[in-house]
C-alpha cells in the first residue's frame, strides 16, 4: 500500500531525509485488460479512477502516448464553475463542481481547489436580463448564483474600467461564489496516483496505432509497445480525437482548433476572483504565484500545430486592457496553445459508438477541464454498464442524426465559431 500524504509524513521525511516513493508505478503493458482507456489526460485518469472506485473494475490500463500531464490537462486556465442553463449540462457540471469540492480529501492529494468566485460582467441592460435569467435558472436547480449591480462591482472589483466613455460600460454582473480555480497538474497527478493505488496500470510513452476488431466489436488496441487485448476500450484523447477515431474507421463531428492562454509576470495579490468579460470571450484570474492568467477565443481556423497566431495575442491583450487598464504595462511571461476538439454545437460527446465495446469521450471545446471529475464519473458508469449515465444522455454521438442538437450557446453549426 502506498504511503499516505499527511503533515506527519511530511515531518518524517523532512527529519529523516528519506526519499518519497513514486506517486504511481511505471507500469509495463500486460497482454490483456478488462478496460483500456486511451489517453492519460485528466478525463482518462479520472475515468480509470472511478472505474476502480465506483464499479470495482480494477484490471484497467490507461495508455498515454507521452507523459502524464503533457496535454490539455496541463495547458488549460484551471477554471471550475457550474453556471449552465440547459437540462443535462446543469446536472453534469454541478455534479462536477461537487466532486471538485471534496477532491483533495477523496484523492489524499492537494489539488488546491480555490472557490474564489467567478463573475460574468454585463455591458448593456439586455445583457443584464440574460444574466438574471441565467441566475434564476441556476437558483431553480439549487446552484448558487447572485446578481450584482454596478455599485456592488465597484466595491468588489475597484480596478475595472468604470469610466463613462469606455467602449463597453459595465452595468453589473453575476457571481457564482462556489466557482474558482484548481491546480491543474495536481489533478492529473492526484487521479494518476489514486487510480494506481486501486490497481490501475498507467502506461506512459505508449501510442495507440490501431484497433483490434472482431466483426463490429473492438477487442483491443495495437500500440507502439505491442498488441493489448481489452474487453472494453474508451477513447479520451481531446485534440486528437479525430485521428484516433479514424484508426477505428469512425468519422467524428469534431475539428481541431487552437486556443491560446497567457501568464503575465507575477504581481502582488490583485485579482481576487475569476472575471469573465461580457463583451468578448475573455477571462482572467490570478495564480498563487502571482501571475495573471487569461485567455480568449480560438484562433479561427483548424490546425494541429499547438502554436498560436500573433493577431489573437493582440486581441486578447486589448480585451485585458479594456477591462483592467492598470495592467497595460505588465509583461507577458509565457503564452502557449492547446488543441480544442471543437464540435458543431459546442457540446461534447460521451457514450457508446457504432462499434460495440468502444466508448468515446470527445469534443469538449473549451469546457473540458472543469468537467474532469464528472466526465470520469459518467464515462466509468457508461463503460461499466454499457449504457450512458443519465447526466450524459444528451451528449450522445448520434444526436445530430436525431435532430437533438445541444447548443448551450446557440451559435450555429460552425466548429470554428463556437
Amino acid at each position, binding site marked *: 500500500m502506498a504511503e499516505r500524504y499527511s503533515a506527519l509524513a511530511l515531518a518524517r521525511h523532512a527529519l529523516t531525509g528519506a526519499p518519497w516513493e513514486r506517486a504511481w508505478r511505471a507500469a509495463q503493458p500486460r497482454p490483456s485488460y478488462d478496460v483500456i482507456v486511451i489517453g492519460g489526460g485528466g478525463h482518462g485518469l479520472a475515468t480509470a479512477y472511478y472505474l476502480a472506485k465506483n464499479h470495482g473494475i480494477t484490471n484497467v490500463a490507461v495508455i498515454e502516448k507521452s507523459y502524464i500531464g503533457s496535454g490539455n490537462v496541463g495547458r488549460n486556465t484551471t477554471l471550475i464553475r457550474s453556471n449552465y442553463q440547459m437540462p443535462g449540462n446543469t446536472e453534469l457540471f454541478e455534479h462536477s463542481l461537487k466532486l471538485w469540492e471534496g477532491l483533495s480529501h477523496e484523492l489524499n492529494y492537494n489539488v488546491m481547489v480555490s472557490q474564489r468566485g467567478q463573475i460574468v460582467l454585463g455591458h448593456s441592460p439586455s445583457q443584464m436580463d440574460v444574466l438574471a435569467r441565467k441566475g434564476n435558472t441556476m437558483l431553480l436547480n439549487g446552484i448558487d448564483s447572485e446578481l450584482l449591480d454596478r455599485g456592488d462591482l465597484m466595491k468588489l472589483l475597484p480596478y475595472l474600467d468604470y469610466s463613462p466613455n469606455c467602449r463597453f460600460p459595465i452595468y453589473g454582473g453575476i457571481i457564482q461564489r462556489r466557482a474558482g480555480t484548481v491546480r491543474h497538474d495536481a489533478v492529473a497527478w492526484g487521479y494518476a496516483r489514486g487510480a494506481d493505488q486501486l490497481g490501475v496500470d498507467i502506461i506512459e510513452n505508449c501510442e495507440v496505432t490501431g484497433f483490434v476488431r472482431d466483426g463490429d466489436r473492438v477487442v483491443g488496441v495495437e500500440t507502439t509497445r505491442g498488441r493489448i487485448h481489452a474487453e472494453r476500450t474508451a477513447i479520451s484523447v481531446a485534440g*486528437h480525437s*479525430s485521428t484516433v477515431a479514424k484508426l477505428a474507421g469512425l468519422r467524428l463531428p469534431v475539428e481541431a482548433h487552437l486556443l491560446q492562454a497567457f501568464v503575465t509576470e507575477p504581481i502582488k495579490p490583485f485579482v481576487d476572483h475569476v472575471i469573465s468579460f461580457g463583451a468578448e470571450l475573455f477571462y482572467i484570474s490570478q495564480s498563487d504565484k502571482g501571475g495573471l492568467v487569461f485567455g480568449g477565443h480560438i484562433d479561427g*481556423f483548424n490546425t*494541429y*500545430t499547438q502554436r498560436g497566431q500573433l493577431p489573437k495575442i493582440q486581441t486578447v491583450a486589448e480585451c485585458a486592457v479594456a477591462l483592467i487598464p492598470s495592467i497595460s504595462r505588465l509583461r507577458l511571461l509565457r503564452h502557449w496553445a492547446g488543441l480544442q476538439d471543437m464540435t*458543431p454545437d459546442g457540446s461534447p460527446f460521451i457514450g457508446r459508438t457504432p462499434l460495440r465495446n468502444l466508448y468515446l469521450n470527445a469534443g469538449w471545446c473549451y469546457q473540458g477541464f472543469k468537467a474532469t471529475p464528472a466526465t470520469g464519473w459518467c464515462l466509468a458508469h457508461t463503460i461499466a454498464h454499457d449504457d450512458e449515465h443519465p447526466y450524459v444522455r444528451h451528449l450522445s454521438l448520434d444526436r445530430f*442524426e436525431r435532430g437533438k442538437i445541444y447548443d448551450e450557446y446557440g451559435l450555429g*453549426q460552425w466548429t470554428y465559431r463556437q
Partner: protein
Amino acid sequence: MLRIPCPHCGERDFTEFRYAGDASKVRPAHGTDDLQAWHDHVYLFDNPKGPHREYWQHVLGCRQWLVLERDTATNTVIGSRLARDRVRA
C-alpha cells in the same frame, strides 16, 4: 503569422481573410432526400492532421473566394486557387 497567397493580390496576412471551413466536402445534389448524406455533409469532418483544403474569402482585398491547401500539422501553405475555378473544373 499564417500568410495566404491570393491569386489576385499576392501573399497577404491571414487576418485580411475570412475562414469558411472544409472545402473538400461535396454538397449533396439539390433536392436529395437522403438525410444521412446531409448529416454527413453538415456535421462530419475528416479533420486531417496533414494536407487540408479550405475556403477563405479575401474580405479586405479583392473579396474573391479561394481554396487554400494547407498542412494542418505545420500550417505550411501548399497552394491556392480561386474557388470559382475549382467549381468550373
